[in-house]
């Protein structure tokens, strides 16, 4: 991996960090975590479950919003504003630009998630006054949320490499929603017959399986997460993201920057 990928990633991170919209989103996410603490306190006996459910969902939701809305303009904004012209006229290959952009946004999301997770654990500590052994699974749930961001970022970047920002947002959001319900899609395929079964099965396998990355309910009930699932989700997410990035590179390599 060339040093140029790192420079582009660092600049992408710097751009996101200096964007005020990002801070608004983080603020709202932390507000949601704070609100879940309030909801938890008024939910007798299930306060921790409510806090974990609402808190982690807020982190996931706001992270996905950031991933999609920054991801879809990562490439198109550079073309529209012609900033890309002064990048690609240097010894920078097009794949380095795409991978660097992806790396930068992923790093931004990791840092954001870390900030939001710190807020979440502070809220949890305020509610429970101490951590228990099962809280380790909360870290795994947050790790899965980060994996989800990696996949969403790669998908947003893929759409951004050939489509307008609005269409990219629609496609990426649609894929996120379908992917969240991919288990239901598989269930529907199993019950269907003929062409519908083939089509539903194909779609269920093509869309990202965000369902398996969502273990929020399980960890809220202090249920353990198997190491096998951690390995499976890691490999699946990284391969899916790599395929999406490879697609983005293939499209972008052939694109005329008018």
């Amino acid at each position, binding site marked *: 991996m060339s040093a140029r990928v790192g*420079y582009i990633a660092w*600049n992408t991170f*710097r751009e996101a960090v200096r964007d005020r919209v990002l801070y608004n989103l983080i603020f709202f996410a932390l507000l949601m975590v704070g609100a879940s603490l309030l909801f938890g306190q008024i939910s007798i006996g299930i306060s921790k479950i409510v806090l974990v459910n609402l808190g982690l969902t807020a982190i996931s939701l706001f992270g996905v919003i950031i991933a999609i809305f920054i991801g879809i303009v990562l490439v198109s904004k550079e073309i529209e504003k*012609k900033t890309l*012209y*002064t990048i690609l006229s240097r*010894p920078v290959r097009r794949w380095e630009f795409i991978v660097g952009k992806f790396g930068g946004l992923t790093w931004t999301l990791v840092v954001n998630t870390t900030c939001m997770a710190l807020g979440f654990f502070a809220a949890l500590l305020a509610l429970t006054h101490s951590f228990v052994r099962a809280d380790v699974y909360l870290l795994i749930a947050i790790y899965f949320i980060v994996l989800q961001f990696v996949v969403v970022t790669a998908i947003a970047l893929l759409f951004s490499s050939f489509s307008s920002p609005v269409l990219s947002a629609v496609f990426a959001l649609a894929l996120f929603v379908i992917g969240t319900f991919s288990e239901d899609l598989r269930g529907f395929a199993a019950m269907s017959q003929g062409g519908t079964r083939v089509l539903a099965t194909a779609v269920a396998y093509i869309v990202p399986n965000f369902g398996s990355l969502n273990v929020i309910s399980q960890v809220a009930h202090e249920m353990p997460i198997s190491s096998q699932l951690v390995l499976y989700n890691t490999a699946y997410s990284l391969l899916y993201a790599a395929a999406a990035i490879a697609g983005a590179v293939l499209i972008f390599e052939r694109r005329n920057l008018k």
Partner: protein
Amino acid sequence: MAAIEITGLTKTYTVGFWRKRPKCALKPLTLTVEDGEIFGYLGPNGAGKTTTLKLLMGLIFPSGGGARILGKPMDDPSIKAQIGFLPEQPYFYDYLTAAELLTYYAQLSGVSARERRTRVDDVLHRVGLTDSRRTQLRKLSKGMLQRVGIAQAILHDPKVVFLDEPMSGLDPIGRREVRDLIATLKEEGKTVFFSTHILSDAEALCDRVAVLNKGELRVIGSVGELTSRAQGRVEVIYQGIRAAALDRLVIESHSTGETTRIIVAQDSLDAAIEAIRRANAKLLSVNPVRSTLEDYFVEKIADPVEAVP
């Protein structure tokens, strides 16, 4: 060795949504720019100047032909470290300061960590932006951004510099400074290929120019060649009574009091002077009419037939 060799470079786009049809943005272009030359690429808006530069920079892909820069194919990534490019109306990451932006570009251009700071300071000084090094680009004026654009194009000490409308958005002082800077680049042995529609700039700077119109190369040559080729007329100023014999020779005439200014063809000069002497008028001056590049440009653009062989 030629710095830039363009051979049959062509670009055709497909336009239309339902009924797709080809639109030729650049007809087969062949030209050579010598090492150390300042080469002006002229043409009205939409002539194909920016298309040519985008093709050379690898931002769009040619439909035919190709080019070699410093002896290497234009799509060879290694060549990019030796060229600098200023796009038309450049826009930069406005959340960065001028120094941050240039440092980022220096990193991408492969300038070593040791040299980066010196190069950035040096280039900011050259474009007169030392005091603005810590100012975010969103706070800079259009003219200052153009200077940042020029700074990023020469930052890594390239051998060939491509400038797309470098004087655009600059005030007269800024234009003069950029002109001086381009002249300095030539003194340093760099090749400068710049597109412009400000003909006085091309006339003042360029060793050679090419005129492009509607995607087609119309003419190429030195400014002197083109402007002397254009006319061949002489301005004669005399004082006294107008000689009747002059009437058939004069192309243009203007009198103020007793002084008359006439324009005659070079071939008719002797006859005109003879006629003035015979009329006992006083000959004040004889000067060749130097046509400007603008005259030539307008003539070439208006002429729909003649093209470079």
